[in-house]
């Protein structure tokens, strides 16, 4: 029963996300609205953490698995990609690695820098 109630709350918030996506003219997907609504509900205490925690942790844990059907869907556009697949693969591979390295390194650098400044100030 506990899980049913938790799951119901999560689905209801997902639904509210869909409603916002329908009503607002922004290119923001329902799931992003859903994150914001859930965060707001947790922060204000409308939804206490314990009333979504178990089902929520389960859903987050199985997340990688949920991408399999979409990833397998790559075969449906193979005909379109096929003539230039090698170039497309290189672009995707190189840019993904660069973005990951740059954003990670910059974040790490700024954290270290501000950490040092705080130590000096103290």
């Amino acid at each position, binding site marked *: 029963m506990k899980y049913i109630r938790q*799951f119901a709350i999560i689905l209801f918030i*997902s639904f509210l*996300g869909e409603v916002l996506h329908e009503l607002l003219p922004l*290119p*923001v*997907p*329902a*799931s*992003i609205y*859903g*994150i*914001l609504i*859930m*965060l707001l509900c*947790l*922060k204000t205490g409308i939804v206490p*953490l314990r009333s*979504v*925690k178990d*089902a929520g942790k389960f*859903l*987050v*844990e199985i*997340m*990688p*698995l*949920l*991408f*399999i*059907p*979409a*990833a*397998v*869907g*790559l*075969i449906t*556009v193979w005909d*379109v990609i096929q003539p230039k697949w090698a*170039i*497309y693969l*290189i*672009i*995707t591979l*190189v*840019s*993904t*690695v*660069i*973005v*990951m*390295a*740059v*954003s*990670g*390194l*910059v*974040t*790490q650098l*700024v954290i270290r820098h*501000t950490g040092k400044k705080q130590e000096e100030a103290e």
Partner: protein
Amino acid sequence: MNTFLEESAYFGVVVSLLSYELGTLLKKKWKLGIFNPLLLSTLFTIAFLLIANIDYDEYNEGAQYLSYLLTPSTVCLAIPLYENLGILKKNWKAIFAGICSGVLSSLCCILAMALLFGLSHQEYVTFLPKSITTAIGMGVSEELGGYVSITVAVIILTGVIGNALADLVFKLFRIKNPIARGVALGTSAHAVGTAKAMELGDVEGALSSLSIAVAGLMTVAAASVFAQLL
């Protein structure tokens, strides 16, 4: 036999789950970043469908119920985010700087490689939203006049690559801070990267999910400027 498999309601889910299990086993055995469960299970499932000559639509008849859970699962990313709000407040400058630099380097990188490989304008704008979450990325590609179906494919591929190469990239560039790792995964590989971040830890997962939203919205604005450049 084939008609039975095509009509079965559970077959698609079972194939996906079994190949994921197989991917996890291989990963345990060879502890290599490339043996990524998501990457492997995708390849196994594709191989199986091709060998058994089963149409994607028929596979998806059952497998769609996995995709059905994606939105609720994404919504639940708010939980680790909520639990780590303190870290977020304390480090917001670094996090914002990291996401900004990631979004800009993504767009610059696509521009540079589009010039290098002589891509057409339409191909170029197809790739611009490649690092952001599918739902936002599709909108950007459509708006700029790209090939939306290729954009979706490239976004998924980006996620799978990011998910699979994260361990290697973090080792190579000595990115050790959990906050930095989370920002890097969410900014470069959206929700599929966040799935990896959740495996690394709660802080990584929280920052990664935040980065998806921020990087997505920043890209919406910046991509329309970059689209003018080629």
